């Protein structure tokens, strides 16, 4: 009898331990104190019931539709579903958003960033880890609302058009997915509680895969939203350079440097453009500034070799005439 009791106790202990593994280990969030409207529900958000293992295509169709893209899960499955993994990778969700010329913005990993985005009218795609150990049970769902007083989260999830979860249950699964969340923005929109680096990473990702017009609109919106930051102006200047607009690029780099005189990338790229424009002496001066700034940092190698090259050109050059007039940088709008 005692033996049976002990074995049951052991098994119960294991069961409880397994349950504990699913509980949140993050600090408790005081939901009622979040700086967001109390109750939000984006009831116009479309619902696409998922098929089989395809929560990725279903969730993605939901958030893309909310950004005015006419698309169904069937359209998206060939873009994101991995048969061999029976699921969808986060990176491929971002890639598919880029293919539709929209901005895939990964939110700051906090509940108030999530709720603020929903309050701004944009449903948010979240990754959840619903299982444990050898059965992680990754799942994508879309947050369409919340209630800070009742401490609830509303989702479109799987085959459930309106799933109501207590906040702590939601956090248990979302925490274990490192609180990954993605919103889809139209180029020109800026997220609620926007983080500059997260936003610029999304915009630069668009540029990197060739969505140039969307990237341009994204950088312009960033300049408006963060007028004193270097990165957005660097983004515009780099784009202008890529489009062959050297004079506009040169002005853009000066614009960036005005806001960040210590920025290695702006100085380096400015030097390169000056060289291309025939401003050899100015380029040599600028690249030496960059060389000092780059010392010990991730760009030291690139800048050092540029500095050697430009210095060599400057030594031999006594014929180039610099066409640039170095007045304070005017505001430049780039031709599209």
């Amino acid at each position: 009898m005692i033996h049976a009791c002990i074995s049951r106790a052991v098994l119960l202990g294991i069961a409880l331990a397994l349950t504990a593994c699913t509980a949140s280990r993050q600090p408790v969030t005081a939901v009622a104190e979040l700086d967001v409207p109390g109750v939000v529900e984006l009831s116009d958000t479309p619902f696409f019931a998922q098929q089989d293992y395809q929560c990725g295509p279903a969730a993605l169709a939901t958030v893309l539709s909310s950004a005015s893209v006419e698309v169904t899960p069937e359209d998206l499955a060939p873009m994101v579903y991995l048969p061999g993994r029976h699921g969808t990778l986060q990176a491929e969700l971002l890639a598919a958003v880029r293919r539709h010329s929209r901005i895939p913005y990964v939110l700051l990993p906090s509940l108030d960033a999530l709720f603020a985005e929903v309050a701004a009218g944009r449903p948010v795609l979240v990754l959840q880890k619903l299982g444990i150990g050898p059965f992680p049970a990754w799942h994508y769902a879309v947050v369409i609302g919340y209630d800070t007083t009742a401490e609830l989260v509303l989702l479109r999830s799987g085959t459930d058009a309106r799933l109501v979860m207590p906040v702590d249950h939601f956090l248990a699964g979302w925490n274990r997915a490192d609180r990954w969340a993605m919103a889809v923005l139209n180029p020109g929109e800026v997220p609620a509680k926007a983080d500059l680096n997260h936003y610029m990473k999304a915009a630069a990702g668009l540029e990197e895969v060739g969505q140039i017009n969307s990237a341009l609109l994204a950088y312009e919106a960033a300049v408006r939203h963060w007028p004193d930051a270097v990165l957005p102006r660097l983004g515009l200047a780099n784009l202008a350079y890529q489009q062959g607009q050297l004079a506009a690029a040169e002005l853009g780099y000066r614009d960036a440097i005005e806001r960040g005189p210590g920025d290695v990338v702006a100085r380096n790229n400015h030097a390169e453009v000056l060289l291309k424009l025939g401003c050899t002496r100015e380029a040599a001066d600028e690249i030496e500034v960059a060389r000092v700034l780059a010392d010990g940092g991730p760009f030291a190698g690139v800048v050092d070799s540029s500095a050697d090259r430009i210095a060599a050109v400057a030594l031999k050059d006594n014929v180039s005439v610099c066409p640039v007039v170095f007045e304070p940088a005017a505001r430049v709008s780039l031709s599209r």
Partner: protein
Amino acid sequence: MNFCNRMIVTTLCLALFNLGSPRVAQAAMISTMQAVESNTRAQDLATVNAALSRAKVREQFVALGVDPAQVEARVASLTDSEIHMLSSQVDQVAAGSSVLAVIGVVFIVLMILEAVGVIDIFKKFP
């Protein structure tokens, strides 16, 4: 590879072989993505291996059952950093699939606990 990265690779190759007139210097521009990623210190800045990683991910996608007609477009829309990460981890990173998988696991655990008498939640059939 995008234009900037191609420029950097070209520059490095030219430097290596000491080709080209000094007057026609190739620019070594640092891309916006590299500037962003150096801010977050998240990624190494190697770009020279991007083409190799991309080929590897292409192969892995085909092996994982992606329609070959779709592979190129899918890989082309991933950034170099994403490609770099996937080329070593495509079997391990999260792949969101279904809440049905969870239900299955929980059911099995409950069955085991029922069988050893810890719980008694399943009604006996008459």
